[in-house]
């Protein structure tokens, strides 16, 4: 009988005559991918600037004296103006399978065992939802007045989720927190919420004053696989979120 360890440790790829693309071609494709992502984000950025600049210019020219808050909010650093409206063409549904339903409001798609994220009141929010018979996936994006407020919200949620994960260890319904280093700040956790093996994977990523919630639920699929799927689907959205950073792309 073969020793499986010997078999594994001597694993080779017979007949795998590698003929990969030249490194220069790989770099060329990588550069093209990067430019495409930036161009997509830049289009969103231009739209955002137009959306913000127009009412400000109108307000200035009319010398208005009312107390309506401005569209933009200054952070403690006077040089940073945080975008307060999601560009109309922001690619929130990018990465999700079709058909996707998009709304300018938020409805939680997550079965959160420990209480989860919700967008702040009166913030600009958008949600894209894909549903299938054996699972579903969604992206939700919300803008906070400042980067500091977004960071605080995600830090608080991270602490709350970590504490909850410890409290639910060994229970029938439990939460696992996974390592994550996307965007400026991120959090990934898995809700195991049914005896039938239903899970809800939640990824929260902050870039500047924006927070993206990417989510997927599945049944009978290993959590690592569902987590990988959520991260794969959210990657192009996270790339495009650079329009919300302190140094926009």
């Amino acid at each position: 009988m073969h020793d499986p360890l010997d078999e594994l440790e001597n694993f080779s790829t017979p007949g795998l005559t590698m003929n990969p693309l030249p490194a220069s071609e790989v770099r060329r494709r990588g550069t093209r991918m990067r430019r495409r992502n930036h161009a997509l984000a830049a289009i969103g950025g231009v739209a955002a600037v137009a959306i913000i600049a127009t009412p400000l210019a109108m307000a200035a020219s009319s010398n208005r004296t009312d107390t309506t808050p401005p569209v933009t909010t200054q952070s403690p650093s006077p040089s940073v103006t945080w975008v307060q409206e999601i560009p109309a063409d922001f690619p929130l549904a990018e990465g999700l399978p079709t058909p996707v339903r998009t709304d300018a409001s938020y409805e939680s798609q997550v079965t959160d065992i420990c209480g989860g994220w919700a967008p702040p009141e009166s913030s600009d929010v958008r949600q894209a939802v894909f549903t299938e018979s054996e699972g579903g996936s969604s992206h939700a994006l919300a803008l906070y007045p400042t980067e500091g407020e977004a960071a605080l919200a995600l830090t608080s949620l991270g602490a709350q989720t970590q504490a909850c994960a410890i409290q639910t260890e060994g229970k029938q319904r439990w939460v696992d927190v996974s390592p994550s280093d996307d965007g400026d700040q991120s959090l990934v956790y898995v809700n195991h919420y049914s005896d039938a093996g239903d899970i809800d994977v939640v990824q929260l990523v902050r870039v500047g004053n924006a927070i993206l919630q990417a989510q997927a639920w599945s049944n009978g699929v290993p959590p690592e696989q569902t987590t990988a799927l959520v991260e794969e689907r959210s990657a192009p959205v996270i790339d495009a979120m650079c329009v919300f950073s302190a140094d926009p792309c």
Partner: protein
Amino acid sequence: MDEREFDDFYAASFQRITGQVYAMIGNRDEAQECVQEAFVRAWAHRRKLERAEHPEAWVRTTAYRLAVSRWRRTVRGRRPVDRAVGPAYESAAPSEAHVALVAALRQLPEAQRQALVLHHIADLPVHDVAREVGVPEGTIKARLSRGRAALAALLADEEGLSHA
């Protein structure tokens, strides 16, 4: 990471990572395509790659996630045209033992197969496997133990059948 460093990294690790991803997913062509695409992404996100403690692990994880994602699209019958496919290559017929091993690996639960490949083929210590997969070391030890036992049983069955 400048161009020369990337090219050296690519040349040194492409075949190794492809072999590991192949062992994880059981399909050589798919493994090569996913690793190729992962290197394209590595160059596109090279600043992120520079911050990664283990660039090879970053590429392997990305390739594996791509493979999982493509598999799901294939299952749904809506897989798009591959974006990063190298020229066709010839492959010699693998040995019987090799085919049996790949077939046995494919029958294992995905988590056990991933742990076995990273530990025994990629030669990563348990600690590094745990970090790459994102679970505690104890979980990896359990997966390795169960995976080895299952693999031994599967290969024994295979041997029994071939001698019957």
